[in-house]
C-alpha cells in the first residue's frame, strides 16, 4: 500500500512537473508571452467599456424612468433593469431602421469609394512609372490629416448653387454657371463621397503596403502565362491584397458608421439622417440615453460581424506571407503617353481634396469679414495686443497667444505619448498575432484590439469618466487621457502592425534566432527596419487622430488643456478667424511631424508603405 501511495504520489508530482514544464516552455516563447499579456490587458480594458454599454442599455436613468412612467404608465425608478430601451428603439421605424439603412448604405458606398480611390492610387504609385510619385504620395494623405468636415466644407463651397438650400453661389456655378442638382450637394452622395475620400488614405496605406511588399514575380508569373491584365488583377493581385482590402473595409465601414460631422454637415440639410446623428441626439438627451446605448450595441454588432469576416480570412492558415527575404525586382508598368494625362487629372483632384482646404483655412483666418477677400488682415495671427472688438478676450494673435501655444503643447504632448504607446503596442500585437496566427488567442487579441473603435467617442469618454470617479487618483491627470487615447486608437496601430507582421515570413526572424540575436535585437534590427514604414504609420495614425480629437477628451480634461477644447471656445466666440487659424496650425503641425519623421527615418505615413 505504501508503495502504491508512493507511486500515485510520484505520478501526481510528475503531472504537476509536466504542467509546470508546459507552462514554462510555453512562456519561453516571446510571442506566447505577448499574446497572453495582451489578451489579459485587452480583456480588462475593453470588456469593461462593453459591459458598461450593455448595462447602460438595460438600466433606466432618472429621466428615462420619468419619461416611461409618464408616457407608458410604468412604475420604473432610477437604476431599474428593463428592455424598454430596446423595445422603444427597435420598434421605431423612423428613428432607428431608416437611419440604420442609411448608415449601412453610406458606409458601404464610402468603403467602396475609399477602396477604388485609394486602391487605384496605390496601384498607380507602386506599380506604374507615373510622374511626381513622391509629391502625389505625400499629398494624398492630407485628406485624412484634416478633419473630415473640412472636405465636406470644400464640397459645399464648390457645388452649392442658387437652386439648392439658401442659394449660396458656389465656385462651380460662379465660374461656369453650372448648377448641379440638389442631391449632389446634400444627401447620401456627398456623405459617402466625402467619407470615402477622407478614408482613402487608409486604403492607400494598407493596400499600397501590401502591393509594394508583394513579389512582382507573382504578377509576372501570371503575365508569362498570358493572362490578361484584368485577369491578373482579379486572380492574383486582388486575392493577395485581400487582407489589406478587408482591413480597409473594416476601418472605413466602421469609421463611417460612427462618423458624425460629415452627415450632419452635408447630410442633414438634405434630410439625410444616419445612425450616428441619431445616436448623438439620443445620447445628448438624458431621457433617451439608454436608446443611444442600444444603438451603440447595434454599431458594435456590425463591427463584430465585419471583424468576424476579417478574422475568418486572416485566421485561415492560408498564408499571405509575402516578404520571404527572397526578393524579386519590381518592374513598373509604363504609362507612356497617358502618363501626363493621368498625372494631370491626379494633380487636379489632389488640389481640391488636399491643398484647397488648407488654402481656404489660411484665407479664412485672414478675412475680417468671412468670405470677403478685400478685408484681408494678419492681425489674427500677428497682433501682440488683445484682438479687441467683438473678439473680446480672445487674447493676442495666434502666434503670440500664450493660451493657444499652451493648449497646442498639451495636445502635442498627449498625442506623442499616446502614439508612442499605441504604436509600440500595435507592433507587439501584430507580432504576437502573426506568430500565433490561426490560434484562438490570436483571434481574440486581434478582435479585442479592434473593439474600442466600435464604441463611439462620446460614450467612450463617458465610460472613462465613470471609471475616474471610482479611481479618483486618475482624475484630471494626463495619465487618464493617455489611457483613454491609447485604448481608443489601438485599433489603428494593431491593424497596421498585424498587416505588416503577417507579411513577414517566420524564417526572416528565425534566421536571426539561429545566430543568437535576442528578441529585442530581432525586433529592433530585423523586423522593425524591414517594415519600418508601415510601423511608423502605426505611430502616425494615432498621432493625427489624437491631435484633432475633441469628443473623447472633453469630459475628462479642462478647457485649454488641449487645442481642440480651445478651438470650440473661439468657435463659440464667433472668432472664426482664430478657429480657422488653429485648424491650419493643427494641419501644419501634423504635416511637419510627418515630414520630420520622413527626413529622419526615411519612412512616412504615405510611403508607408514600405519601400527600402
Amino acid at each position: 500500500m505504501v508503495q502504491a501511495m508512493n507511486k500515485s504520489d510520484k505520478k501526481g508530482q510528475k503531472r504537476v512537473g509536466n504542467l509546470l514544464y508546459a507552462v514554462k516552455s510555453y512562456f519561453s516563447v516571446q510571442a506566447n508571452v505577448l499574446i497572453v499579456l495582451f489578451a489579459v490587458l485587452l480583456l480588462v480594458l475593453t470588456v469593461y467599456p462593453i459591459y458598461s454599454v450593455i448595462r447602460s442599455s438595460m438600466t433606466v436613468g432618472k429621466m428615462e424612468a420619468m419619461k416611461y412612467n409618464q408616457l407608458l404608465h410604468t412604475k420604473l425608478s432610477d437604476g431599474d433593469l428593463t428592455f424598454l430601451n430596446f423595445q422603444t428603439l427597435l420598434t421605431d421605424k423612423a428613428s432607428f431602421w431608416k437611419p440604420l439603412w442609411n448608415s449601412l448604405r453610406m458606409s458601404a458606398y464610402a468603403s467602396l469609394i475609399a477602396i477604388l480611390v485609394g486602391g487605384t492610387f496605390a496601384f498607380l504609385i507602386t506599380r506604374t512609372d507615373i510622374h511626381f510619385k513622391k509629391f502625389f504620395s505625400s499629398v494624398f494623405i492630407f485628406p485624412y490629416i484634416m478633419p473630415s468636415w473640412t472636405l465636406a466644407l470644400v464640397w459645399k463651397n464648390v457645388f452649392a448653387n442658387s437652386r439648392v438650400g439658401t442659394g449660396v453661389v458656389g465656385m462651380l456655378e460662379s465660374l461656369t454657371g453650372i448648377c448641379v442638382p440638389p442631391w449632389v450637394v446634400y444627401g447620401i452622395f456627398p456623405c459617402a463621397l466625402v467619407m470615402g475620400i477622407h478614408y482613402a488614405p487608409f486604403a492607400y496605406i494598407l493596400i499600397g503596403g501590401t502591393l509594394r511588399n508583394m513579389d512582382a514575380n507573382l504578377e509576372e508569373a501570371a503575365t508569362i502565362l498570358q493572362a490578361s491584365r484584368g485577369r491578373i488583377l482579379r486572380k492574383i493581385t486582388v486575392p493577395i491584397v485581400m487582407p489589406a482590402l478587408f482591413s480597409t473595409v473594416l476601418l472605413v465601414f466602421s469609421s463611417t458608421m460612427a462618423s458624425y460631422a460629415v452627415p450632419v454637415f452635408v447630410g442633414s440639410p438634405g434630410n439625410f439622417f444616419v445612425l450616428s446623428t441619431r445616436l448623438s441626439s439620443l445620447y445628448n438627451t438624458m431621457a433617451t440615453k439608454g436608446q443611444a446605448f442600444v444603438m451603440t450595441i447595434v454599431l458594435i454588432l456590425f463591427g463584430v460581424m465585419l471583424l468576424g469576416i476579417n478574422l475568418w480570412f486572416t485566421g485561415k492558415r492560408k498564408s499571405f506571407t509575402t516578404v520571404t527575404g527572397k526578393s524579386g525586382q519590381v518592374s513598373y508598368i509604363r504609362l507612356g503617353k497617358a502618363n501626363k494625362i493621368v498625372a494631370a487629372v491626379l494633380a487636379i483632384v489632389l488640389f481640391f481634396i488636399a491643398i484647397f482646404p488648407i488654402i481656404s483655412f489660411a484665407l479664412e483666418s485672414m478675412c475680417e469679414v468671412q468670405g470677403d477677400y478685400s478685408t484681408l488682415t494678419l492681425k489674427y495671427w500677428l497682433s501682440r495686443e488683445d484682438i479687441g472688438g467683438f473678439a473680446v478676450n480672445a487674447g493676442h494673435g495666434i502666434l503670440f497667444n500664450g493660451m493657444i501655444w499652451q493648449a497646442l503643447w498639451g495636445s502635442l504632448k498627449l498625442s506623442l505619448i499616446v502614439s508612442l504607446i499605441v504604436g509600440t503596442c500595435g507592433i507587439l500585437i501584430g507580432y504576437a498575432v502573426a506568430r500565433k496566427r490561426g490560434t484562438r488567442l490570436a483571434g481574440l487579441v486581434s478582435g479585442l484590439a479592434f473593439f474600442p473603435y466600435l464604441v463611439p467617442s462620446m460614450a467612450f469618454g463617458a465610460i472613462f469618466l465613470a471609471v475616474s470617479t471610482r479611481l479618483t487618483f486618475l482624475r484630471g491627470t494626463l495619465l487618464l487621457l493617455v489611457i483613454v487615447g491609447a485604448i481608443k486608437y489601438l485599433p489603428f496601430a494593431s491593424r497596421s502592425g498585424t498587416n505588416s507582421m503577417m507579411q513577414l515570413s517566420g524564417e526572416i526572424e528565425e534566421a536571426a534566432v539561429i545566430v543568437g540575436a535576442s528578441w529585442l535585437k530581432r525586433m529592433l534590427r530585423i523586423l522593425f527596419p524591414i517594415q519600418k514604414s508601415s510601423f511608423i504609420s502605426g505611430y502616425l495614425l494615432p498621432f493625427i487622430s489624437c491631435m484633432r480629437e475633441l469628443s473623447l477628451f472633453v469630459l475628462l480634461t479642462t478647457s485649454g488643456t488641449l487645442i481642440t477644447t480651445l478651438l470650440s471656445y473661439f468657435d463659440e466666440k464667433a472668432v472664426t478667424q482664430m478657429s480657422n487659424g488653429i485648424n491650419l496650425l493643427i494641419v501644419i503641425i501634423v504635416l511637419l511631424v510627418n515630414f520630420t519623421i520622413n527626413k529622419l527615418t526615411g519612412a512616412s505615413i504615405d510611403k508607408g508603405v514600405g519601400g527600402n
Partner: protein
Amino acid sequence: MPKITLTNVTKQWGKFIGVNNLNLEIEDGAFVTLLGSSGCGKTTTLRMIAGLETPTEGEIRFDDRIVFSSKKNINIPPARREVGFLFQNYALWPHMTVTQNIAFGLETLKWRKDDIKARVAEMLRIMRIEQFAQRYPAELSGGQQQRVAIARTLAPKPRVLFMDEPLSNLDAKLRGEMRTELKRLHKDTASTFVYVTHDQLEAMTLSSKICMMNEGVLQQYAPPLEVYNHPANLFVADFVGNPSMNIVEAVAKKGAPAAAEIDFLGRKALFEAGADFDLDSENVSVGIRPEFLPISPAGDIEGLAYSTLPAGMETTVKIKVGDTILSSVVFGAIDYETDEPIRFSVSGSGILLFDRSSGQNIAVGRLTILK
C-alpha cells in the same frame, strides 16, 4: 563536431502528431538527409534539432550535452546550440546589404570588428560573391541570393549546419551546380550537415546517411546505397530510385531453408536468400529494381513493349506483362516499336521480398524463373 542523438522525440499539435517517437543518431561529420514527401515531419524534425521548434516529448543531445529534454525541463535556445540554418526561402534580410547580412550573426556573437571583416571577406571569396558585397538582396538573382544565404549561415562557423530544402527554389541546372558545391563545402568545413529534401536524387547523391520518414515515423536510417539496395519496407523501396522499383504482387510458399517458391507473373519461380527467413503470410510483394530486368531475345518472360523512353545514355523500357507494367533500364539507346513482343529476365542478387500487409522487407536474394 558533435554527435546528435534524438531519443523518443515526439511533436504533437493538438491531436495531430507531426513526429512520432523518433530515435536518431547523427554521427559527427555526417551528411544526413531527412527524406520524405511534404508533411512527413522532416522539416519539423530539423527545426526541433535546431531549437526552432519545441518537441512535445523526448530528449535531444549534442554529444553528451542535453539541449532538450522534456523530462528534465531543459530547452537550450537555438543560438546556444551553435548551429547554422539555411532556410528554404533564404530569409535574407531585405534591408541589409550582402555584407551586413553576413556580418549580423558575427556581431551578435560579439566577434571583434577585425575578425568580422576578415570572416566576411573570406565567406564572400569562398562563395564567389565578392562583387555583390554592397548590394541588397533584391538586386541579386536567385542563385546569388542562395550563395549569400549560405555565406551568412556558415560565417559563424556553426558546428552543425541545417538546411531546409535549400535548393528547391533554383532551376535544375543551378541546383546541380549547388549540389556539387554543397558536397565540397561539407568536406571543406568538416562540419555535420543535416539536410531536408523531398528529392530522392538529392538525398542519394549528397548524403552519407538517409533518414527516410513517412507520416512522422522513421522508415529507415541508413547510407544511401543501403537504402537503395535494401529498403526496409515497401514505402522506402518505392520512394527511392528513379524509375521506381517494380513492385509485383505474388504468392509465396516457404520451401527449403532460405528459399521460397513463388507464383510470379503467372510463372513458377524460386526465391533464394542469403539467410533464412520466415513467411507470415503467403501474400508477398516482390521488388525488382529496373536494372535487374535485362531485355534479351533469350529472356525467360515474354511481354509487350508498352512504351520506350530513350534518354541517350540509358533507355527506360516499359514492359507489359498481363495487366502489370514493369520498368526496365537498359544501357545505351534502343527503340522498340510500340507493342512489339520482347523477352526479359530477372537477374542479380538484389531482388527483394516484402510482406504485403505489413510492407516490411523479408529477405533479399535472387529470383530464378522455373521453366
